């Protein structure tokens, strides 16, 4: 079976040429690809170079968000982490557009600082790394909320943020490559399943 992942532009070009003969369609896939590329370029150009300025979170909150995203999905020996993958920007954008998210994440970050001040006398970001880990270990598991009711809101906040961090990470190029997803290409035929391991 000779299947290669040719570039999408090449394939679309081929499709466009073969589509010209006798098709009922008036679509030109090459133009479609061109349009998509331009859209992305425009979006990238619109973002100022350098530092991202958050749309919803305050600069201090955003720092905390970055730190939490990094805790949830850090860099490891195989790939970069959620921060490099753009998860904080993604979360900030969605939160800026959704009141429910604002309550859960904006409010959640304030809960976290209040909790840290109550227990350590300082905000989460001012806490020592061991202290931050202690808090994270508490709010990362539902069973702790059962044992300690005051953690309920923290556990709910962390679970929500964990989902969104995974969304941000696994929809990025880094995350998709981390999972070794191979696809989103055009192919001339479908070869079926490679041999199943015994």
């Amino acid at each position: 079976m000779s299947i290669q992942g040719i570039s999408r532009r090449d394939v679309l070009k081929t499709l466009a040429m073969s589509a010209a003969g006798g098709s009922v369609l008036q679509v030109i896939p090459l133009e479609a690809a061109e349009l998509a590329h331009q859209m992305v370029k425009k979006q990238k150009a619109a973002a100022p170079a350098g530092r991202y300025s958050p749309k919803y979170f305050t600069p201090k909150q955003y720092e905390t968000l970055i730190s939490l995203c990094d805790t949830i999905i850090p860099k490891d020996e195989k790939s970069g982490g959620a921060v490099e993958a753009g998860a904080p920007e993604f979360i900030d954008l969605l939160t800026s557009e959704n009141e429910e998210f604002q309550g859960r994440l904006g409010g959640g970050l304030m809960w976290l600082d209040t909790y840290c001040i109550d227990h350590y006398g300082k905000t989460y970001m001012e806490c020592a790394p061991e202290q931050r880990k202690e808090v994270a270990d508490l709010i990362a598991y539902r069973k702790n909320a059962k044992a300690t009711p005051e953690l309920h809101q923290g556990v709910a906040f962390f679970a929500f943020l964990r989902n969104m961090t995974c969304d941000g990470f696994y929809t990025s190029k880094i995350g998709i490559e981390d999972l070794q997803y191979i696809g989103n290409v055009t192919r001339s035929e479908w070869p079926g399943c490679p041999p199943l391991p015994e």
Partner: protein
Amino acid sequence: MAAKVLTEGGLNVVMLEAGPQVYPEKDYKMLMWPYELPHRGAGVGGRASEDFGEFLAPNGAWDIEGEPYTSAPGANFRWFRSRIVGGRTNHWGRIALRFAPVDFQSKTRDGLGDDWPITYEDLAPYYDKVESYIGVFGTKENVSSAPDGVFLPPPKPRCTEILIKKACDKLNITCIPARLAILTKAHNGRLPCHYCGQCGRGCTTASNFSSSQVLIPPAMATGKLTLITGAMAREIVMSKDGKAEAVSYIDKASKTEKRVYAKAIVVAASACESARLLLNSKSTLFPDGLGNSTGNVGKYLTDSVGSDGWGEIPALEKMPPHNHDGVGGMHYYVPWWKFDRKNDFPRGYHIELWGGRDMPGVGMFDGLCRDEEGYGVQLKRRARQVYGTTVGFSGRGEMIPNPETYCELDPDRVDQWGIPILRFHFKWSEYELRQAKDMQETFKSIIEMMGGTYKTKTRIDGQYPFGILPGGKIIHEVGTARMGADARTSVLNGYCQTHDVKNVFVTDGAPLVTNPDKNPTLTIMALSWRASEYILDEAKKGNI
């Protein structure tokens, strides 16, 4: 469908479309990566997740601003609408299944519901025509609940599907190649599938079926089709001689009322939208709405019974990374296989298969996060390990019409165009709940036969026992202007013509008398083709 057959038959047709034109090359997000969009597929405020994500072909949604609908207390009906040329065929799952002979004779079979005024044999030539024209892949299997059709060759199974089939074989569950309106070979001037697995986004090469790309272009080519977009049909206007003479519509751009006159009117706005138009077409002759002289418009509403489940299969962890995309949808499926025995619910269901190494997307790891909790490198490793090992099932079964399930005009409210809106009533009966229970048990048995862990947890009580989905969620709502031999209990005759007014036809899901476990689209197209030939014939005879 009607526009193509009628224009090719020589008639002039004006088509009113409530939404805009579709431009595949610009509107379809084929081959885009999530990171090419700022919202990564989640949509503004993350809200597109409910509407099948931001990559879905445009203008299909559960809620449309300014065009609400209401649900009676406890009904929680969800109504998906596609305001765009080609409508839901831009979005649908491309599952193209014929109804079986027995599906047309339900009352004779088990005393429930009603028989159709037509038989499988009446419709079979039109199934042939539709399949031959649009292109459907599949295999001849001789399964009596799932008649064979005119098929293109099917794609080979994915790894997940090979394992599911092995397990099904051991359990004596029939598992066969799926039947989807996707081209595995060049067909009628359209290119074959390029296996990106993204049919729901819309296909710029029209290698899958949509009305906008496959039916409208040939109708346009006749020079006899006038397409008016942004036109919200409000009322069918009656003449003094008891015939329909025009459609009044709101031109959305100018917010003004306009009118188009015609010798015959074909309503195909989707089952409930068509019911709404008929109910809103009140005249001195038909004070309760056109076609509604016996009060049947909006009644007999059904959706498919839906319940889903999934599990993790450790055997798949050993699979090397590979391209799993295939066509946009399952390559194999389970047709209703227990038709030859006594079950504790009437009728049946089919099972759709999914899972494997899909393109990562928003929400993919919600289940993992919930189960694993924690954070850090451990969570990341676990995601790597389980990615691609998930397999899932969607059971889709037949609902029996019941008197507590229907739509009607909301007495108090109008939409932003001033048109009275629909209010839905919906109730699952014991029949459907037992079917959902059977689905869950079957899913679990297949997963366990595969050596996996079944992850879906359902309750036996509450609003949605056994994971049964809210009414409307499967987007197979039909029956709201059903056909029948008896004008006292139906709205249309066997040619989709209203009993009340002989130049008004309804050709979407509304005419369906039963809603068997086969997705309705193929049958809707076959009925529409048949009705359109009848219209051509009647026009020739001067009856319309």
